[in-house]
């Protein structure tokens, strides 16, 4: 099974708090690929806002992004640059 994954550090000032999580999920939903976000041993669907928020990701956490599908590379690129923004 082909898929792309990458490990990134969350640099968003507030971490993935509610508003940022909503934007993140909105971005994830632009892609057709199945995308997952993993923190420690917990893996959730990146298109699910509740799932993302349940991880309570703080700034400085290292997370793994996993994508599988036609636009997997674009998805990984777009999402990792989103969580690495320092705003």
């Amino acid at each position, binding site marked *: 099974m082909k898929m792309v994954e990458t490990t990134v550090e969350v640099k968003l000032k507030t971490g993935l708090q509610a508003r940022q999580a909503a934007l993140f999920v909105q971005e994830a*939903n632009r892609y057709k690929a199945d995308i997952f976000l993993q923190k420690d041993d917990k893996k959730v669907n990146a298109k699910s*806002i*509740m*799932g993302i928020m349940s991880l309570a990701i703080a700034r400085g956490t290292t997370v793994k992004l996993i994508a599988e599908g036609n636009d997997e590379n674009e998805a990984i690129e777009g999402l990792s640059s989103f969580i690495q923004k320092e705003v």
Partner: protein
Amino acid sequence: MAQVTTKDVMEKFKLTLVSGHEGIGRHITTSDISRPGLEMAGYFTHYPANRVQLIGRTELSFFEMLPPELRQERMMKLCSQETPAIIISRNMDVPQELIDASNENNVPVLVTSMKTTRFSSRLTNYLESKLAPSTAIHGVLVDVYGIGVLIIGKSGVGKSETALELIKKGHRLVADDCVEIRQEAEDILIGSPPPLLEHLLEIRGIGIINIMTLFGASAVRPYKRITLIVELETWDPNKTYDRLGLDEEKMKIIDTEITKLTIPVRPGRNVSVIIEVAAMNYRLKRIGINPALEFSRRLDEVIAMHDEIDEY
């Protein structure tokens, strides 16, 4: 994989740490418990070193009958590199040889006031639930007429909206969007929400709502066994959907196979009613009434009868 350390057990059962303090962070990897009676007698060939060792009155009184040099040797063997903990029941005094051996090999020795058998069963229960394999699934878990129905499907297909409709009809929400599933025993999957998301549901256009405050305590459940999976998908004219209900499709979660129905979503199809009926129909099948099978049998009979008439 979930992990339990000796420290977790100590805190959970309020045990007293006697010696081997440095090994308190050791991992317990199995829910099996060993009572090292034969080991005390010198038989270490099949010593299950990676289990928690539980010493009761029988083992300890036997140990006290041994000559001093044997005591020291056997306690050293008991405190192996892998042993996560040695627990002594009934608040009995820990033999000096065990204290020395445990301090040397950093195996924590703990004492409980409980009786051996009682402690053993409580520890087994605790370890089994803590070490149960678990996973998280993107979906919504609802209790419909007492059947735990897991609704899955692509993002935006209407899982949460369907759940909301079911709640309005008097059914109960367990978890929205992210369901944590543990296989607590063979063929038993228990779903619960991540602690942060308890009672919450997200509806596009409204946002996050609290089901408990909106609909009351009867509209929520903290956990539920999953017995039926319903997959929602946008109606695909090129796909064939089950028209008879004679065959059951299965989906595997961890090591358990669960019956799965695929329900196409299309404007005008009331999905919540379909799920209610699917749950009731599933219950009916478990009771032993299978309308699809009965109908098919009746049809076979009628066809066979026609065949006989034709022969004359």
